[in-house]
């Protein structure tokens, strides 16, 4: 398979710390590739080695099948996890500055419309809110119409509305055929945006695949949650022994762990069970992470 970006046996060591420990993966063109893991896992270090910000200790990074050269910077866009912009420059002036740093750029009006910068275009960049600043930084990452866009934890610290607005922008970028490389510790973000992802912990890849592939592989079971009346003889109750799935009791809330939600529903309906409290919970990437690593995504 031809990969747009390929990473082979990447290492990054800082004295006694192995921040990245033998990572290899490939990113196909036009996809959104995610690096999912907790803080300190090595996601940012990995992505910054690919971007050329920090040098690897060892390993190989290929772009379009060849080692990166001086033209690489012209073809990528980067939004860092935390960055500041020049004091006293307005949003318009920042766009004008970065417009001059590349050989080929998108028209400012197009970027302003795409990232909805119009309402604060003449405000100084250091006076923007968190969500506004992230949209400006995304615009800067897109200014050179890059083939690959790197987004390092782009929605950390944003309110829910700003996060959703940002996700819409990323979806639009994907629709334009760009390749997006995203690091995140938000499983909802990874599930929504990523076509493929790697799970990183302590500098190593734990597993790789699409979100659904990973869930199907490691967590094929679903949870059918229902409240059991105190007395199973009460109307609407049911006989647990007649259910095929495994039952877990959480203080009166029952979780029926099953590989087939339809089968469980048929079994409950056959007993005339009151289904008003029924909920179906699919496993999440957080559940997957706990299963694979033994600790939570946000320890």
């Amino acid at each position, binding site marked *: 398979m031809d990969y747009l970006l390929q990473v082979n046996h990447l290492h990054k060591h800082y004295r006694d710390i192995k921040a990245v420990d033998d990572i290899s993966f490939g990113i196909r063109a036009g996809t959104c590739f995610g690096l999912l893991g907790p803080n300190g896992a090595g996601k940012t270090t990995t992505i910054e080695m690919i*971007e050329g*910000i*920090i040098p690897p200790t060892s390993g190989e990074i290929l772009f379009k099948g060849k080692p990166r050269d*001086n033209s690489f*910077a*012209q073809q*990528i866009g*980067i939004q*860092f996890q*935390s*960055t*500041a*912009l*020049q*004091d*006293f*420059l307005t949003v318009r*002036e920042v766009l*004008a*500055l*970065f*417009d*001059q*740093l*590349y*050989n080929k750029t998108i028209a400012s009006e197009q970027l302003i419309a795409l990232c909805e910068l119009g309402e604060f275009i003449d405000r100084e960049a250091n006076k923007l809110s968190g969500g506004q600043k992230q949209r400006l930084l995304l615009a*800067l990452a897109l200014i050179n119409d890059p083939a690959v866009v790197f987004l390092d934890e782009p929605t950390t610290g944003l309110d829910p509305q700003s996060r959703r607005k940002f996700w819409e922008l990323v979806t639009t970028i994907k629709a334009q055929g760009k390749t997006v490389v995203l690091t995140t510790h938000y499983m909802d973000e990874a599930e929504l945006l990523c076509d493929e992802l790697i799970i990183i912990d302590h500098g190593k890849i734990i597993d790789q695949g699409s979100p659904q592939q990973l869930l199907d592989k490691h967590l094929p079971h679903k949870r059918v949650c229902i409240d059991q009346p105190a007395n199973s003889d009460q109307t609407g109750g049911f006989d647990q022994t007649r259910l095929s799935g495994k039952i877990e009791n959480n203080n009166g809330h029952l979780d029926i762990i099953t590989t087939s939600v339809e089968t469980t529903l048929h079994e409950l309906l056959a007993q005339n069970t009151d289904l008003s409290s029924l909920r179906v919970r699919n496993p999440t990437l957080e559940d997957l992470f706990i299963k694979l690593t033994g600790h939570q995504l946000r320890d």
Partner: protein
Amino acid sequence: MKQFFAVFKARNIEYYRDKGSLSWAFMFPLLVIIGCAVTFSNPDESVFKVGLYGNADSFKNIELLQQSYTKSISFEDLPKALERLQYHQLDLLISSTGDKQYWINTESSSSKAAEQLLLANSHDFTKQETSGRKIRYVDWVIPGVLGMNLMFGALFGVGYVIVRYRNNGVLKRLQATPISALQFLSAQLASRLLIVVLVNSLIFVGCHYFLNLVVLGSYINLLLITVLGGLSMIAIGLLVASRTANEELAGGLLNIATWPMLFLSEVWFSLDDSPQWLQSLADLMPLTHIVKATRAVMIDGATLAEVSHHLLWMLALTAACMAMAAYLFRWTKSS
């Protein structure tokens, strides 16, 4: 080149909108000018200063020199003594070596008065004349003050900003673009040079207007000295700021660079009577060359050729510091 001009333009916009720094850049020199004008408004001294060139015993019979209102200063270098007389730092110069001679400054009334007192009792001296406008201490010190202002504006103006930008990630964002370290540093140097030359020129014009300074040489040469001096100072600032993200450390390093220059570069006083090793050390400092070249042009009317060694030294220092700064430059704290 367009990357260079883009960063150059952006930096200029940032600077003039930074009202705090901009105000201080003009307020501090203004306070210095006012301080100098007040400090140097003392009345003339009434004591005659007589320079003596020759064996000390040969002057014993000169009655003028025995008076309490006369101060005698011995010289081993006749041209230097004449220079002092021209600058009104001596009222009379007497030589007992070979033909007995004395010199007066025809533009100095004190000199003529001292002459009369000499001739009242001594008649075997041949008269020689020289002339020169009085060089006040303020005429002597202003080149140093201008150089000092250039130094502070260049070093601290560029050093702190780069360290702060490295600290808060602005440089990291630029690292992700195609701009090179040399292009970025060159744009910073050009932007700061424009500002310090403009500010220093305005201060010079202000000082000249209020203090009626002695300017015997070319204004173009003074501008050239300011440009090259500014370049060398900014290059040092860029070198100091090339790697650290610690603002306190940067401040410390900049102070280590500036304070020795402040005291050893002949800003406030001459090092003529200092040990040779100290003078050699001072000659390594760019501020020494800025001050000496400026003073030579203003007070002595020196030509470009006569100060060229100072200019070449500043140019060489600029090239060396810029090369090292570009080589050592780090965009981030950890790169």
